[in-house]
Each structure stands twice: as C-alpha cells, then as structure tokens.
C-alpha cells in the first residue's frame, strides 16, 4: 500500500467519523433524575449520605487491623493478634503451647549439649560411647519439640491472617450497623431522627 492510499484512507476516516459518532447528550449527562435525584432535597440527602459514608470509612481506616504490623507482632509474640482481636482462649492456647514447646526444646537441648560436651572432652572409649548415646535422646526430644513449636508458630501466622480478615470485616459491619441503628444524628444540614 502506497503512502498516497494511506493518506486517502486517513482523510476519508476523518470525514466519515463525525457522522458515525453518537451525539453527546449533555442533557442526559446532567440529568439529576439519572440517580433518582428528583429534587435538590433528595440530592442533598444523597450528598449527606455520601459524606457520612466517607466519615465511616475514616473511622474504619483508623480502627482496622493492619496486616503487616499484626503479622510482625504475632511472629514475635505468638497469639498477640488473637488477644488484640478479643480471641483470648485461642491466644492463650497458642502462646501457652509455644512457651511450653520452646522451653521444653531448650531444656532438652541444654541437656543434650551437656552430654555432648562431655563426649567431646572424653578420652576414654567407654565414656565416648556412653556420652554419645546419652546425648541422642535429649537431642531428639529437643528437635521434636522445636519442630512442633515451629508448626504451632506457622499455624499462628496463618491464623493471624484469618483473624485480621475476620476482625476487619466485623469492624466494618459494626461501624455500618451502629451508624444505621443510630436514631438521632446531628449533621451540618440539620437533625435527623429515625423511628
């Protein structure tokens, strides 16, 4: 296709396109009835409602749980988010399990290292075998409790996601319901009382 043909095609397109285009309906666009605003009073009511929703959103944003901060807190102190969200029983179980498992793990690790040090310093073949065998059981227990502690910790992180999600959903519902159940509301546009 030559440049001449392309030029002709562009010019034709420019001529025809206004004829094919829909006419912009400025009346329809500015028609307040489009949103069921039949009067300026209704429009004002909708405006107030929108402003109230924005206020509710601000309240929600201020009070909602932040995923990142809650995850960091729960990672450092398992069950923290559960306590914050009022799920005390679950928080106590998680924290209690973590403390019990990691303390047990440390206890057995310390015992294992005590025997292991004796093994490393042994010169006698009898002591070498004896202390190495004595190291095995506490070492295994230490690893087992650490692994279980790790499992609970991972579950705690996973559950933190769910708790934050649930808390935020409930928070929004509560804010929204509180607003709508409020009988008396004073706004700049006047006082509203719902029966």
């Amino acid at each position, binding site marked *: 296709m030559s440049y001449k043909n392309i030029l002709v095609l562009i010019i034709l397109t420019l001529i025809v396109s206004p004829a094919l285009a829909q006419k912009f309906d400025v009346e329809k666009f500015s028609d307040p009835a489009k949103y069921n605003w039949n009067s300026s009073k209704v429009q004002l009511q909708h405006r107030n409602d929108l402003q109230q929703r924005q206020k509710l959103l601000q309240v929600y944003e201020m009070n909602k749980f932040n995923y990142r901060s809650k995850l960091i807190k729960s990672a450092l102190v398992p069950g923290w988010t559960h306590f914050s969200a009022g799920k005390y029983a679950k928080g106590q179980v998680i924290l209690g399990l973590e403390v019990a498992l990691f303390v047990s793990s440390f206890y057995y690790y310390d015992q294992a290292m005590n025997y292991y040090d004796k093994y490393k310093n042994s010169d006698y*073949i009898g002591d070498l075998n004896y202390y190495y065998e004595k190291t095995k059981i506490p070492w295994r227990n230490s690893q087992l409790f650490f692994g279980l502690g790790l499992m609970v910790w991972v579950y705690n992180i996973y559950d933190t996601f769910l708790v934050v999600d649930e808390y935020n959903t409930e928070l929004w519902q509560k804010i929204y319901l509180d607003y709508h159940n409020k009988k008396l509301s004073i706004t700049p546009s006047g006082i509203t009382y719902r029966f």
Partner: protein
Amino acid sequence: MKNIIILTAIVLILGSCALDRSNPLDPVGNDIAVPNEVIGINISHISSNEIEITWNSQSDADGYFIYRCLSLYGSYVRIDNDQLNSGAFDSFTDTHVITRTWYYYKMSAYRLVGGRRLEGWRSGPKTW
C-alpha cells in the same frame, strides 16, 4: 491436610538429625583402632609398702593407665603414669601404699592420636 503432612515431615526430618561425632578420638568415622584391653594382669605384694603389677605388653599401645581404689566398687583414681608411656612396658611398682591396706587395681592401654590419648577399655578390678 497437605500442609499438616508437610510440617509433620519437617518435624520427623529434624527429629532424625543426629549430632556429629566430632571428637577426634572417636573411632567411629575417624578410622582409629582402639587399643585392646590389657590382659595377663598379675598383682603381687612384694613388700609391706610395695605392690607390683605385671601384664602382657601390647604392640598396639603407646602407654598404659593404672587406676587404684581402696574398695572393689569405689571410685578408682588414676596413678600418675609418666613412667608408663610406652607400649613396651609390662610392669609397674606402686610404692605409695600404706601397710596392711587392701588395694584394687584396674588397667587400660592408650594410643596417642593427635597429641591426645585415646584410652581403650579398662580391665576389671584386680587384687593380689
């Protein structure tokens, strides 16, 4: 369920991890031959304050340890054995003894490994 299986596997793997046998004297993994138990131990009271211990010398030993105790199942204390630092020795005279006191002895052979002494199995308690 899948996550639980994976985590359980991690726990089992962690639990099965054994500690290294890091002692350089440990025969397991270091290809060290442990000296044999000393045999042919004979103890005789040669005078009121001298006890002689004899044994079969061992070619696989670099020296011997001798332990002494006043009772059969008591705590045996090693006698200073600088004079026993050769596998060729086959006797030792204990001169630090009290007259009319009963002594029990245990013996073992050792081998030098990297400047340390790997002590083989100790013998049972012996007396005259």
